[in-house]
């Protein structure tokens, strides 16, 4: 990995910046380069050595021994600025193709089409099933995109591998004006330097209340509903995501340490999953949004947006939305957001910025939400309560909405050290090959 030359850019303390963000919410008009203080940034945590991250003295935050930033809510990370962002006066590219890399069914085709029309460009979406798969394929260099959808815990890896490029926030004005203040300059990407928030979600238990009679909220943890679903053998979804799956087993045991690296905890969680599989024979997938309304999955671990997505796009004729239920762990359960980034290999970086800005437009975000995706964007203008009152969304899925309070107090799967990640991944491989 080549380090950018230390050009002695002026610096200021990470803590001050984090403080300014916390206080002002939007006090991030300038990114690195416009800063004019001279305090060096200590990279708190191991291996930082005061040189910032990856040789960028303006970056900082806790890192693991290998230099991968480990953002935590109380320990924000300013990611190293590697490479230059596009200039504000750069012309928007026209014609040709804008290439997007995303989960399947995670972007409204109507919204994509409208963007294509607006900018006279053909928008193509390539999909991945898991974030690990996405990272693997991106890092081989075989796939090139302009826009990459990802998650905060993957962001530091994407930055470390130079797969995403620093943003020019002047080209994304909607960020400052439209999104929840707590997501503008989040702890995993102070600035932000690389990412804008896409949608927020919780992870919980979704089920067909006409088939499975259960009240997860009445159980010791909501997750027990899966372990109890013996009658639903073969129709119980486990998310195809090592962090989510093993994390769920950890939460079921009463812990909320979703970023643990303790081998014993992970082993115990994997053993729990194996027990779960023996009892209910899980389906390892992420397509509950389609399979739950079809009745092929009757209960399972799923994301809140899957429920609304199911209602919006996948209910078969004759199946009312009222058969779907959702519950999540309100204390210590995962509540987080996904992010959109501009790829370093972007051939249309300016247009990619325009796309990010477009996705943060209140009308576009709303349409994408209620017309297709079902995942809620953290937009100030979207009042979840009124969506239910107006009947845009079914009242029985009120629990699938993420409130600002829940988001601010939520738990999250965050970047682990390489060794910690290895432990989770090995545990997952052991489960998958059981």
């Amino acid at each position: 990995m080549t380090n950018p030359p230390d050009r002695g850019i002026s610096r200021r303390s990470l803590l001050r910046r984090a403080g300014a963000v916390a206080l002002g919410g939007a006090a991030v008009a300038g990114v690195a380069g416009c800063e004019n203080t001279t305090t060096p940034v200590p990279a708190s945590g191991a291996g930082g050595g005061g040189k910032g991250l990856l040789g960028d003295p303006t970056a900082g935050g806790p890192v693991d021994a290998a230099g991968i930033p480990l953002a935590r809510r109380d320990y924000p990370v300013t990611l190293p600025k590697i490479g230059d962002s596009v200039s504000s006066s750069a012309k928007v590219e026209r014609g040709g193709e804008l290439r997007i890399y995303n989960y399947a069914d995670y972007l409204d085709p109507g919204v994509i089409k409208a963007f294509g029309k607006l900018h006279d460009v053909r928008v193509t979406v390539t999909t991945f099933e898991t974030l690990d798969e996405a990272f693997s394929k991106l890092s081989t260099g075989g796939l090139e995109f302009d826009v990459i959808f990802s998650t905060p815990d993957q962001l530091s890896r994407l930055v470390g591998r130079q797969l995403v490029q620093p943003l020019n926030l002047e080209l994304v004005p909607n960020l400052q004006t439209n999104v929840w203040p707590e997501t503008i300059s989040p702890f995993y990407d102070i600035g932000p330097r690389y990412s804008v928030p896409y949608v927020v979600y919780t992870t919980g238990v979704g089920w067909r209340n006409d088939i499975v009679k259960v009240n997860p909220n009445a159980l010791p943890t909501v997750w027990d509903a899966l372990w109890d679903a013996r009658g639903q053998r073969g129709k119980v979804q486990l998310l195809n995501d090592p962090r989510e799956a093993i994390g769920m087993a950890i939460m079921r045991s009463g812990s909320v340490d979703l970023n643990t690296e303790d081998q014993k905890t992970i082993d115990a969680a994997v053993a729990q999953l194996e027990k779960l599989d023996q009892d209910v024979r899980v389906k390892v997938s992420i397509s509950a949004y389609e399979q739950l309304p079809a009745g092929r999955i009757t209960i399972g671990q799923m994301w809140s947006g899957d429920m609304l997505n199911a209602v919006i796009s996948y209910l078969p004729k004759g199946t009312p939305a009222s058969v779907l239920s959702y519950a999540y762990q309100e204390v210590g359960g995962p509540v987080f957001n996904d992010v959109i980034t501009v790829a370093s290999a972007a051939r249309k970086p300016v247009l990619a910025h325009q796309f990010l800005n477009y996705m943060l437009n209140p009308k576009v975000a709303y349409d994408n939400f209620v017309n297709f995706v079902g995942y809620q964007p953290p937009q100030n203008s979207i009042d979840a309560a009124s969506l239910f009152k107006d009947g845009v969304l079914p009242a029985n899925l009120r629990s699938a909405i993420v409130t600002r309070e829940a988001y601010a107090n939520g738990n999250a799967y965050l970047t682990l050290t390489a060794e910690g990640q290895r432990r989770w991944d090995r545990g997952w491989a052991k489960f998958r090959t059981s």
Partner: protein
Amino acid sequence: MAPRWIWRLLATPALVWLAVFFLVAFYAIVSVGMGNVTTLFEPVPHWNPLHWNVGYLWQAIKDVAPGGQTWNVFVRTVFYVVAAMAISLAIGYPVAYYAARHAGRRRGLILVLLVLPFWISYIMRMFAWTNLLASDGYAARGMHALSIDSLFNSLGLLDGTDWLGGQSVTVILALVYGYVPFFILPLYASLDRLDQRLIEAARDLGAPPRDAFRRVILPLSRPGILAGMVLIALPMFGDYYTQDLMSGSPNTTMIGNAINGYVQGGPDKSLGAALTLLLSAFLLIFMLFYLRSMRREQVQAGS
């Protein structure tokens, strides 16, 4: 007839193409399997044999050995493939035999029907089955109406009523469905070439039809059966998407799924590559067996 050098010249590009693309790809797998990973879990291939790291290969060997992490998966894969081959033989041989020897005017139709599935991609056909076999799908309801599911239940082949809920039998039948044409076609070609005079001779010498079949036709169709078997066994051993679509449960994980899991993400891409090497070595045994028996047949035919 054109001189030999013309044919050599014409064959060279394709041979070079095959050699390069096989060898380069295979060497890449070897180099990744003998390589390492970065802290970001990207594989670092070791191209120089002097720098090979045999740790992952050793790990893979320990994993597929009895008691290792992938031992169960390996045994299951062998079982699935052998079962699928047996079923393919049972349903494929009569079809090939009929098409080659008794179909008469309908032979063309049967051949078209055999090739027809290839007009639609394998994945699309499997997707179709996920709809047909879902609890509310036509196939599932039809089999329920005919009590086929309860028959399978009582035989212990189906657990519950959900065909797609991690059932070994579904995965095996899907493998058969996907690969049986590849078995029938080479078998048909070999049965079609069968020397009619040998069968006539058997009959003339007083063999009843059953004996003629058992002692003449069956031994003569051995090369065809073997070719078909090898042709379907090799891809079935590496198959992973059939299992993904038909089950997705860890209970039916095949060796291809394990490799796919390692390679798609996580810190053990090299282990995935090493496992691929082991699988290749294992399949090479099949291949050698096939080549040896082919040679023996040729020698017999020549003598």
